[in-house]
């Protein structure tokens, strides 16, 4: 059985928009899967479903055998600590120091008052410091998160995600707000950390060249369905047309 097993996932928003239409795919631990597709193809929705931020209309998402779609809110909170999330807009808590932001990845493991008052033991701090080191930002540990540049923020956010010691990392367009140079370094940091930890990583990404460079596997989404699933070198122009220019193809056919 795969680590992540999505079966017939369907999501209809209250306004009637069908964001995901019977999506099925599986992924193994240690894989880096890049998900490409146009804006509105359902990439973000897919990641948010896996994390339980959106409740699927039907279908199942098995993560290590647990079905994310049939969990109570408290079970979902328990489950989320195994899922790291990297956001397009970083979403660090601006007014907290960098290290505290990274440490917040441990919150899910801290029951009771200790987590609320911000007490983290040495082991937690060790882990957070090590992960901050891995993204080369240890020298920023005591600075407030809003003092960092975009690229630095995203690397902190990667450190926060891996500090959860997750089974899976979901990255929702992690480099979309960065310039091409920074995008490459952040993407390489993300891929390196993911490979070192052997953690399954799903990355929504618009930069196809970066996807080809770092992914083990690429999934193409268009209009809520998977239209491509394969190795990076199988991503031909014809496939690209199917993923990105489906409307023009339809117009041509008509």
């Amino acid at each position, binding site marked *: 059985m795969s680590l992540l097993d999505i079966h017939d996932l369907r999501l209809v*928003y209250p*306004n009637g928009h069908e964001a995901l239409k019977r999506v099925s795919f599986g992924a193994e631990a240690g894989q880096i899967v890049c998900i490409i597709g146009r804006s509105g193809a359902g990439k973000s929705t897919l990641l948010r479903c896996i*994390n339980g*931020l*959106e409740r699927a209309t039907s279908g199942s998402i098995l993560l290590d055998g647990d079905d994310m779609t049939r969990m109570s809110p408290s079970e979902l*909170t*328990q*489950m*989320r*600590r*195994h*899922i*790291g*999330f990297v*956001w397009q*807009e970083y*979403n*660090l*808590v*601006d*007014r*907290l120091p960098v290290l*505290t932001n990274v440490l*917040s*990845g441990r*919150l*899910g493991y*801290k*029951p009771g008052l200790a*987590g*609320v*008052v*911000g007490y983290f033991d040495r082991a937690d701090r060790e882990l957070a410091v090590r992960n901050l080191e891995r993204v080369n930002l240890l020298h920023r540990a005591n600075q407030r998160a809003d003092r960092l540049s975009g690229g630095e923020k995203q690397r902190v*956010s990667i450190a*926060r995600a891996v500090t*959860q010691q997750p089974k899976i990392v979901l990255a929702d367009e992690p480099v979309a707000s960065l310039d091409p140079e920074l995008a490459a370094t952040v993407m390489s940091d993300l891929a390196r950390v993911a490979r070192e930890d052997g953690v399954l990583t799903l990355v929504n990404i618009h930069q196809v060249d970066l996807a080809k460079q770092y992914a083990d596997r690429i999934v193409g989404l268009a209009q809520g369905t998977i239209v491509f699933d394969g190795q990076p070198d199988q991503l031909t122009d014809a496939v690209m047309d199917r993923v990105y220019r489906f409307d023009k193809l339809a117009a041509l056919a008509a």
Partner: protein
Amino acid sequence: MAIQMTDRAIAIDATQKATAEETGPLTVAREDLLRPIPKLSPRALVAILLIAIVYVWSINGTQADPEQLVKGVPNMVGFVVRLFPIDFDWRAVIKLPADVTLPFTINAAKFTDTLDGDPELQKVQSEIANSVPLDQAIASGQPMADPSAQTQADQAAKAQAVADAMKRSWVELKPSVWNRIWIPSIVPYVFQTLQMAIVGTTLAIVLALVFALLAARNTSPHPVVYQVTRFIMNVNRAIPELIVALIFVAAVGLGPFTGVLALGVASIGSLGRLYSEAIEQIDPQQVLAVRATGASRLQVFSFAVVPQVLPLMTSYSLVYFEHNVRAATVLGIVGAGGVGLALQQYIALFQFRELMGAVVILIIAVTIIDRISARVRMQLI
């Protein structure tokens, strides 16, 4: 959450478009634009009339009578004259060792002379033997379960006993005025008021934070909880500190602890409302990110919500601290400790010169506190 918000934004956009289409392009009459005095619409006339009615009604209700005021000016002057010369009601607090020489001199003769010449004081002196010390006088006030039962005579007797006790230090120390440190007798009360404000405000902050968490749209666990806490806070806002203090006087008796409880509870409504509005303005994405790490509701609150609202919260809390210093002054009137108690005694005994001295000290104290708190606020924002 983000999705919901975009939906709402779109909805607003759509309604705006709709109204713009319905009204069409507005026509402006050139003549109207050239009028030096704008034409009043019937609606504006009604509004002006309404405001006028409200003022007439209000002024009538307050029985405002300028003539009476003018006639009363001599009386006012008479009263103001009784406030002077200011008497700080000095009182010895520390007896210095005999070999200590003060860096300044006190005209002891002046003190003793005024005391000896005072027939009022001689009377007090004779009563000292069976007078009640100040602390006991305060403590002996019955828990005010039924305030109406307290007769005026009782109150006057109590006030007299307290005054005796306050004077006692004078008389006992008279022979050695010069080797003691003297302070205005209001000062310990000012410190007590300050202590009440510090503890009371801290209590208020903790309570208001809990209420704010439940009463902010984005952190409230359930719409029913949201409505209920909002309602409680509205009710709380409508109850003056004095009434809250009376309730706690019934519970824990007279004294500064009553004042602390009153300040803490009376501020929940207004402080909690300010907090909850600050919480509603935070960036939901940062909250979402912490929630996505598997943090519990309380953890999300302390890691994503509190850091974002901290500057505003601190600012509001300091404003409330200043407010509570002033409120604590009034609370003494119902026996909840602090300056108010001393002020009430001065008023009851017609000691207006001492009253004026206390007011001067109060002005100085409140000014210093406000300055310090303003300075702290500047540093934090």
